[in-house]
């Protein structure tokens, strides 16, 4: 009999039940075994009392989807059964805390799944364990899970040791004992799943998108990060803060987002690689500062992690509706906008953002979203040796011999002026938010409207905007990537984290004999018009998939290329797509008879 090699697990309970630590234990066990994991956290903006769950897909290959129906679930509190038992795959397994959930109640929900209640108190009492805290049921249920999934116990016990050793040997022993109680009980009392989860034994990184962005920034030479806490961007601040001393970084929580962007601009002008990060609401406050960076020609990276909007919106849910915000600001100015698609990409695009900012002396906006930033998953490796730090026309030398006065905004063919770092003898200058001449002298006040000031305005504005074309000429602004069968009748169009879900949908469709392909945008602005248009025109039927109502990416494509995409799959309830969700939408919307042959 062949065993399945992948599974979906869900862990649910109240905030404070230890859902995250159980998830970490399972995730790290799998990643250390060389398995791939993708975990989606569903939680509320509440510290205690909210109902939270985590769904994890596990398998030997890279996971693109956390899936719909879990096959094994762990339920911690009495709210859990009614919410989660209906979702369990028929024939699946439900482990629950018998101390909080009544057997008769849970079993009355449906009869086609297997229920196993673990009586924590009775079991620890029988084992005569002391100093036990009721929250440790999470370790016992983890034991049940590791046994059911037939994972490597040694790996889990090692992880528990790593995690608790700083609290002392006794704590490690107690956790091991409780884990074993759950493990042995499950071995004796349950029917094993027909499952063989086999990894490649190469330990993977188990991390979140915010961790990967933070690590990418540091790898790319970031020295300065100022931010104001805002979900779902705060994780970047948390991660970078832990490295402040070891890696000699300036990581500052400042008083608001107005401060955050302006601290970063000040630092960027001083000559360090500087960034800030926030969600859409915070970015609204930063927009004037982004314009300052563009006008003053100061490199600065802003990470914009999207959540449900407008206003405070839905802090802990996904939405992809902030492209027009990232494109916003008063006046016309050059900028670069890019959006990573998965955890690895978060790392590499963060490096790229820093390089582009300095090369073109512009603000760069790195767009993530709640799912991408906050979900955990495995990454095979991150290759630091690939990283090149390119600082563009930055110099600390100025030849004052010729007595020539330094022009910070010298007109150049490519629109990028040599940038002498402040502190360099002889090259004193001012960077400014007003319109100015080559020296940075203001042309906006007493001289405004005079013929030479009008000429300077035309030339300086054109110089700045020249950089947008230059990004395209240099191939730094890349066209979308077309993946899959070139002759497929249907092309999905995506950006950001939706990439993975469409990839998963395509695999499901392929099983049904339907071939599709996939046009994915990483660079959002500027778009290389000709190359992008050529790709769009090559596709037979384009269907966008975006986590929003109003097709933010399609509008951007229309504005930048004149090409209109007219068919869309949208989701804006705050939950991320799944492959199955996309396939179902496709069937509903585009194949009335639920036959996909014509898609």
């Amino acid at each position: 009999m062949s065993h399945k090699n992948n599974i979906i697990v869900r862990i649910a309970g109240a905030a404070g039940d230890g859902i995250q630590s159980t998830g970490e234990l399972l995730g790290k066990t799998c990643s250390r075994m060389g398995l791939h994991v993708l975990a989606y956290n569903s939680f509320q903006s509440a510290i205690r009392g909210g109902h939270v769950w985590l769904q994890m897909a596990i398998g030997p290959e890279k996971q693109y989807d956390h899936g719909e129906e879990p096959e094994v679930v762990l339920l911690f509190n009495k709210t859990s059964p009614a919410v989660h038992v209906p979702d369990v795959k028929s024939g699946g397994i439900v482990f629950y805390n018998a101390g909080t959930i009544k057997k008769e109640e849970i079993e009355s929900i449906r009869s086609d799944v297997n229920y196993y209640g673990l009586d924590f108190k009775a079991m620890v009492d029988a084992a005569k364990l002391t100093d036990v805290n009721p929250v440790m049921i999470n370790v016992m249920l983890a034991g049940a899970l590791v046994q059911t999934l037939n994972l490597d116990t040694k790996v889990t016990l090692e992880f528990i040791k790593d995690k608790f050793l700083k609290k002392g040997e006794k704590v490690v022993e107690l956790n091991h004992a409780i884990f074993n109680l759950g493990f042995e009980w499950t071995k004796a009392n349950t029917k094993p799943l027909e499952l063989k989860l086999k990894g490649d034994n190469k330990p993977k990184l188990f991390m979140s998108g915010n961790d990967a962005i933070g690590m990418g920034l540091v790898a790319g030479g970031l020295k300065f990060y100022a931010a104001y806490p805002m979900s779902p961007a705060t994780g970047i601040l948390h991660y970078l803060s832990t490295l402040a001393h070891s890696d000699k970084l300036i990581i500052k929580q400042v008083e608001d987002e107005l401060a955050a962007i302006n601290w970063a601009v000040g630092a960027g002008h001083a000559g360090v690689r500087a960034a800030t990060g926030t969600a859409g609401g915070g970015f609204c406050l930063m927009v004037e500062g982004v314009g300052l960076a563009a006008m003053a020609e100061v490199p600065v990276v802003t990470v914009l992690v999207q959540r449900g909007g407008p206003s405070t919106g839905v802090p802990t849910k996904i939405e992809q509706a902030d492209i027009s915000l990232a494109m916003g600001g008063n006046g016309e100015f050059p900028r670069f906008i890019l959006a990573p698609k998965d955890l690895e990409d978060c790392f590499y695009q963060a490096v790229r953002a820093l390089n582009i900012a300095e090369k073109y002396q512009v603000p760069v906006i790195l767009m993530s979203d709640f799912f991408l930033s906050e979900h955990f998953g495995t990454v095979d490796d991150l290759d630091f040796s690939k990283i090149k730090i390119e600082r563009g026309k930055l110099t600390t030398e100025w030849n004052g011999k010729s007595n020539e006065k330094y022009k910070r905004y010298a007109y150049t063919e490519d629109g990028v002026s040599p940038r002498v770092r402040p502190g360099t003898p002889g090259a004193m200058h001012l960077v400014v938010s007003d319109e100015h001449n080559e020296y940075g002298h203001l042309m906006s006040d007493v001289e405004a409207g005079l013929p030479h000031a009008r000429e300077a305005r035309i030339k300086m504005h054109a110089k700045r905007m020249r950089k947008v074309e230059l990004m395209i000429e240099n191939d730094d602004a890349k066209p979308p990537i077309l993946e899959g069968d070139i002759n497929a009748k249907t092309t999905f169009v995506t950006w950001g984290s939706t990439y993975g879900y469409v990839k998963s949908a395509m695999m499901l469709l392929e099983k049904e004999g339907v071939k599709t392909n996939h046009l994915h945008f990483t660079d959002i602005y500027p778009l290389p018009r000709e190359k992008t248009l050529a790709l769009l025109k090559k596709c037979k039927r384009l269907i966008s998939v975006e986590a929003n109502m109003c097709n933010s990416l399609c509008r951007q494509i229309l504005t930048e290329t004149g090409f209109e995409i007219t068919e869309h799959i949208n989701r804006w309830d705050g939950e991320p797509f799944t492959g199955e969700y996309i396939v179902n939408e496709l069937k509903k919307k585009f194949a009335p008879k639920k036959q996909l042959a014509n898609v």
Partner: protein
Amino acid sequence: MTINIIDRKDRPALDPKEFKGDVHPDWCPGCGDFGVLNCLQRAFAELGIPQHEIAVISGIGCSSNLPGFINTYGMHTLHGRSLPNAQGFKLSHHDMTVVAVGGDGDGYGIGVGHLIHALRRNIDLTYIVMNNSIYGLTTGQTSPTSALGMKTKSTPFGNPEAPLNPLTLALGSGASFVSRVFTGNPKQVVEVYKAAIKHKGFALVDTFSPCVTFNKINTAKFYKDSAYDLNAKGHDTSNIEAAFTVAMKIPDGTEPIATGIFYQSERPCYEESEKDTLSTPVVDHKLGISEQRAKELKARFK
């Protein structure tokens, strides 16, 4: 006290002319801001700080045009945002002398949130607020320091709001250097600016800088008639209660207006908390991660 990472060398004086910018100020003839510019140039020159080691960073307003008229490095940023830019700049290149400048609208109105936090944070920089109790560049509206009842274009029936007191605000926000000067007394202005620049921490210098065009109340004569030098009268600058007592007097001309250094404390500046990182200026740090460090960074996630 801990060893301060900020080195204050005694250096030979420079010629103030070397600090003259290429652009002639566009302020109204007689504007107090000319005095601020001259005194700041003299303070830099007397302290012997070379031009390239200085950054003057402003917000927006008449007075915020000052960095354009002085031959140093500088930034002319957004309305209210001189201090965030200046603090980001300073921590990145802490061996430069950073002076933030701007008006009362910039610092006490739109940017006052940043001021409070800069005061308590105590990064080693100087903040000169050219306070004229009016919005000049926007042609004469009420400012946070306009007197109660003052008629302006936006308050034709008299300002209904009590003025903000920058000195008590600063003292109450953890300031380590609080002072006030009047441009009509340049000798004192230069001395206080020098003391503020030399102070190891955040130094606020509220500078009465009369607007000759839009404020007919707080004129040069108004201040000349009532200003006196607090420090000449034996004021104890280390006593915060004494500082509060003097600072609480509203400078409306009904009694003598104190100028000089109100308060100065030696509490460690912010940079002390980042001593290791700032052992060399951050701008000079080598960028990138070594192979060994990359392994360690990744190990945390395994």
